[in-house]
């Protein structure tokens, strides 16, 4: 059985095989492509797998590429042709310039950046402090404080937007970027994530530091915080992504077009120039490119965030 399928193992894998295997083990049995349990994967199964993977790839990444392709097509190129033309015949950045002429897209991008940046800072600082207070410090009312954050996490934000808006108006902060940031600036979910991270640290190190005379702030900053950097990175990334991508809340709180964030600006662009597909396509690419770049660089934190934040509603 093995002889027949041996031939189908990829060349690449064979080369690696030869490099890795200690000479003593060389024998009739060769190392093959195996699954997570160490069992070998059969050739036809492998081919089928790659075929399916490519099909799903076309389905998940294809739409982004089509949007990119549309955004690069010039005014004279037919974007409605059937069968479709996947590659722009004469790629041009013309549409990107037109977006900037139509709406202040770079100002919107800067507004988004400000909101996302502020959201990262406040969430990291606020949830680290509160998480530490919930996990490590002893005081009366700690359980109540934990419960407050758990309850806040369970509140469906979509249901309270009108009241949030009213609150914001009472504070005189509607139609400001501060108003966009405030409601999510210290997420209850992030506080609980940080609390769990601190709880998982061995207590003994902090105890030793205490014996050496370190006060709360010193223990927090020098010992506890550096040990939870990974979780802090997850909080930072999801805070950035959440603020950059958010739509419903900025849509409600912002009314002045000069204060728009990118998502609201895009919605406006689409609402006003829906028939100019190349223009809208260029706008969406401007909005999505920074996040895809961020994701490409920091993938493992994105994935870790899903695992740790799976309870998020």
């Amino acid at each position: 059985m093995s002889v027949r399928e041996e031939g189908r193992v990829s060349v690449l894998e064979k080369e690696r095989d030869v490099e890795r295997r200690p000479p003593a083990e060389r024998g009739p049995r060769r190392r093959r492509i195996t699954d997570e349990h160490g069992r070998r994967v059969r050739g036809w199964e492998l081919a089928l797998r790659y075929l399916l993977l490519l099909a799903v790839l076309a389905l998940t990444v294809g739409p982004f590429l089509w949007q990119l392709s549309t955004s690069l097509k010039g005014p004279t190129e037919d974007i409605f042709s059937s069968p479709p033309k996947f590659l722009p015949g004469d790629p041009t950045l013309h549409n990107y310039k037109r977006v900037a002429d139509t709406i202040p897209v770079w100002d919107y991008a800067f507004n988004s950046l400000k909101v996302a940046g502020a959201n990262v800072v406040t969430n990291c600082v606020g949830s680290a402090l509160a998480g530490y207070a919930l996990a490590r410090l002893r005081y009366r009312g700690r359980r109540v404080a934990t419960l407050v954050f758990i309850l806040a996490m369970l509140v469906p934000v979509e249901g309270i937007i009108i009241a949030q808006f009213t609150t914001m108006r009472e504070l005189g902060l509607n139609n400001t970027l501060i108003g966009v940031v405030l409601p999510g600036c210290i997420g209850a979910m992030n506080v609980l994530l940080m609390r769990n991270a601190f709880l998982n640290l061995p207590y003994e190190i902090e105890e030793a530091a205490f014996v050496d005379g370190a006060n709360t702030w010193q223990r927090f900053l020098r010992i506890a915080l550096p040990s939870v950097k990974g979780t802090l990175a997850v909080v930072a990334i999801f805070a950035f992504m959440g603020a950059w991508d958010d739509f419903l809340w900025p849509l409600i709180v912002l009314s002045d077009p000069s204060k728009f964030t990118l998502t609201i600006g895009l919605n406006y662009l689409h609402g006003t120039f829906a028939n100019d597909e190349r223009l809208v396509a260029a706008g969406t690419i401007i909005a999505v490119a920074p996040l895809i770049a961020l994701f490409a660089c920091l993938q493992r934190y994105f994935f870790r965030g899903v695992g740790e934040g799976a309870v998020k509603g």
Partner: protein
Amino acid sequence: MASSSSTARVRRQLPTSPWLFAAPGLLVVGVFILYPFVSTVVNAFTDRRTLIPGTFVGLANFRELLHDDMFWIGLRNSTLYVLGVVPALVLLPLLLALLVQKNIPGITFFRSAFYTPVVASIVVVGLIWVWLLDERGLVNSLLESIGVDRVGFLSDQWLLLLSAMAVTVWKGLGYYMIIYLAALANVPRELHEAASVDGAGAVRRFLTVTVPAVRSTMVLVAALSSVAAFKVFSEVYLMAGPDGGPAGEDTTLVMLVQRTGTGLTGRVGYASAISVVVFVVTVALMLLVLRADRKEDA
């Protein structure tokens, strides 16, 4: 409050610091989450408007809801959304996770690529699909090139809702795939091997080994996705437009909250009553999923 409790293993140096640490978080969560929640529930029993404080009106808002066609349309659409999206988001990401589970060459690239729609903003995703599903868009071009008539995905009330559901599923696939991957990693291989030895094929093994082993994760995904689906706003808002498609027939409950409660003449009280319905259904959905889970256990 400042005195150390007897259980304290680490005594504080600065007596006020624990509350100082927790204060910013408590303040934000209290003022911008819990207070608006309480005020939503209170407002639901008033006739408050954006610029008018309003008075207590008892159950008048809820009685009005019963006779409001738009409310029933919203409730219907949000419920349909749950029914359409949840089965797909429980099953498809699991199949996808099985597909990317094996460590074959290049698999990390595929895993990351499948996650891309999760990273993109819902506005970007919505607009991408508005263009793809346009009367003259890519999907229709492809259909035409294989000899199928063009379909008005975004002009028919039901096709629009279905398209929005498809977009929600498309954007959520990668997220739940990662959740399932973590769960699959804990399925003992002996179970699969035993089933193989017993002659079970791939489908049998999926049903008798994989599904029972990741069932608690499936329940989690069902709970998360049903709550999220019932609160759908952005996909439908972007694809059907702010007014909710032809004659507003695609309006969802959260869209109705947004439309009713904002603006200078916004009916805050009435919108809050709709919000209360959203809260109640959300909690009911969670309980329903958890109860279905317990029944299967018995």
